[in-house]
């Protein structure tokens, strides 16, 4: 029977929650799996994923793995994959998208990017994945013995612990690619935020170009009230009203919260691709013909600058 190697992503010394989507993938494929926790500080974080039913939790911890330079991670991931694994799975975060193809190329493996579903048919796996900005779903099979997939976080609901305690085992660090000598990590410029991550939030408040310089002033109080993550359209990010990492869409973060507010967002195809999977969508836009209304469960044709403060006070009354 095939075995899956899940590559856990780390951030701030912890296993990122996005990893739990790859665990859900492995459970859906109904195959035994191990989890490779890789990065500087991985040994201390490994205990976080021992309760999910993995055969083993493998640890690759080394100072050379600080800084998430793909050329240092890929060789060890590939080396571990060769110790009896048939499928390598990694969540399709920016880290996963960067490293997964490189691992596939090292293994001579086929790669199914950003999969949204998996079907097991007599041991052969068929993957489902969105194409054309989520306007169609393709089914595909990989024609190689070893396979690599990246897993769409918004479509594989984060796994819950299943009990038990997987054994933790250190693995050998492979020598870095020669190319690694030509990459120097300078730094990660991250905006520290107390808000939940876009991929994990129950509620997301997203704003568009219409918010202009008042983006944070208008949306933050609403987001704070709802303990929501803040998202943005491309136009809002391009104009500098919101930082780029907040972009939701085909080429930004793909999200599926319980509740999504699209405020002053027109609803271009590329934006819809990133949020159409949300459970309930609310749109506030002053243009009654804005395409966002075609996907919204509740639409309010109104000026956002008066509506959002009103919404905040009504919500306070209601909760």
């Amino acid at each position, binding site marked *: 029977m095939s075995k899956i190697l899940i590559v856990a992503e780390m951030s701030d010394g912890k296993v990122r929650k996005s990893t739990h989507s790859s665990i859900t993938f492995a459970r859906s494929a109904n195959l035994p799996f191990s989890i490779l926790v890789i990065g500087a500080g991985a040994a201390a974080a490994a205990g976080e994923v021992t309760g999910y039913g993995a055969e083993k939790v493998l640890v690759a911890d080394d100072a050379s793995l600080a800084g998430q330079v793909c050329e240092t991670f890929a060789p060890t991931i590939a080396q571990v994959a060769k110790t009896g694994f048939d499928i390598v799975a990694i969540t399709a975060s920016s880290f996963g998208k960067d490293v997964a193809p490189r691992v596939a190329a090292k293994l001579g493996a086929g790669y199914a*990017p950003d999969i949204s579903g998996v079907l097991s048919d007599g041991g052969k796996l068929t993957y489902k994945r969105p194409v054309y*900005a989520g306007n169609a779903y393709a089914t*595909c099979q990989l024609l190689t013995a070893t396979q690599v997939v990246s897993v769409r976080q918004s479509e594989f609901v984060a796994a819950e612990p299943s009990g038990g305690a997987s054994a933790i085992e250190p693995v050998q660090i492979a020598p870095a690619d020669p190319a690694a000598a030509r990459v*120097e990590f300078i730094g990660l410029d991250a905006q520290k935020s107390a808000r939940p991550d876009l991929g994990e939030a129950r509620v997301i408040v997203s704003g568009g170009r219409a918010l202009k310089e008042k983006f944070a002033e208008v949306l933050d109080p609403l987001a704070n009230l709802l303990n929501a993550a803040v998202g943005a359209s491309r136009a809002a990010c391009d104009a500098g009203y919101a930082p780029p990492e907040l972009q939701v869409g085909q080429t930004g973060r793909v999200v599926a919260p319980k509740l999504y507010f699209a405020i002053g967002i027109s609803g271009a*195809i590329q934006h819809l691709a990133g949020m159409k999977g949300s459970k309930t969508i609310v749109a506030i836009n002053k243009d009654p013909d804005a395409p966002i209304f075609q996907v919204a469960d*509740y*639409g309010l044709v109104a000026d956002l600058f008066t509506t959002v403060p009103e919404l905040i006070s*009504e919500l306070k009354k209601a909760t």
Partner: protein
Amino acid sequence: MKILVPLKRVADPDNANKVKVNGGKLETTGLEWKPNPFDEYAVETALRLTENGTNTKARQGEVVVVTIGPKDAETTLRAALATGADRAIRVDAGDEQVDGDLVARILKAVVDKEQPDLVLLGKQAVDGDSNQVPQLLAEYLGWPQATFAATLKSEADKALVVGREVDGGTLSIRVTLPAVVSVDLRIVAPKSVTSVHTPATHNYPDGVRFAALMAIMAAKKKPLAELKLADLVSDPALKIQYTGFELPPARKAGVKVKTVAELVEKLKNEAKAL
């Protein structure tokens, strides 16, 4: 600096909601071919790296564009030539004949021939949304990769400082050339690309440049070479097989609410979303 820019044409992405599925097959009939937007950004980036921004006529280096596709994909190459690329290569292949892996292996062979200092690609082709060719190519070449580049600073044409857009913010790395770089949306902002050839005070217009009519005419005379797939790759086997397509389930139509109070009432009692 010599830069190779691989380009793909895609069915009009602004009308992607018009794709149809017929008998499990995907149909894009009626959708016009457009250059993949990220590849247009890659061409613009290549031009900015190889010119003095205050005098964009003279190239300080060479920009070569390449596509793997059928004859009609040459339109995309000509468009890139018209904006300033120096020459073009088309590797003849039907769209169904290649997958991302084979494209990367073909590109490796083209790189081996052309010996560029830098390969600049779009971060993803917005038809398949795969986001894989740049990374695969980097591994096949054994070169460093810098994906999702939002800013690029060229240091004496020998190294690049790249600001990469990642989930947590912007990650900066320095790569020594030759390297593979894939570009993100904001690479075409006025100050995203800094080259040694352009004064630091220079501001580019936001977005990509358009070709003047004269340049479009002149581009017809620029060299466009055709290469055969079989001359570049001995094993053209595919690693992925698409077996079917379906349309996503439609969202059920929503309602317009009249007041904020009504919205909150519905969110609370109907959607139970609060």
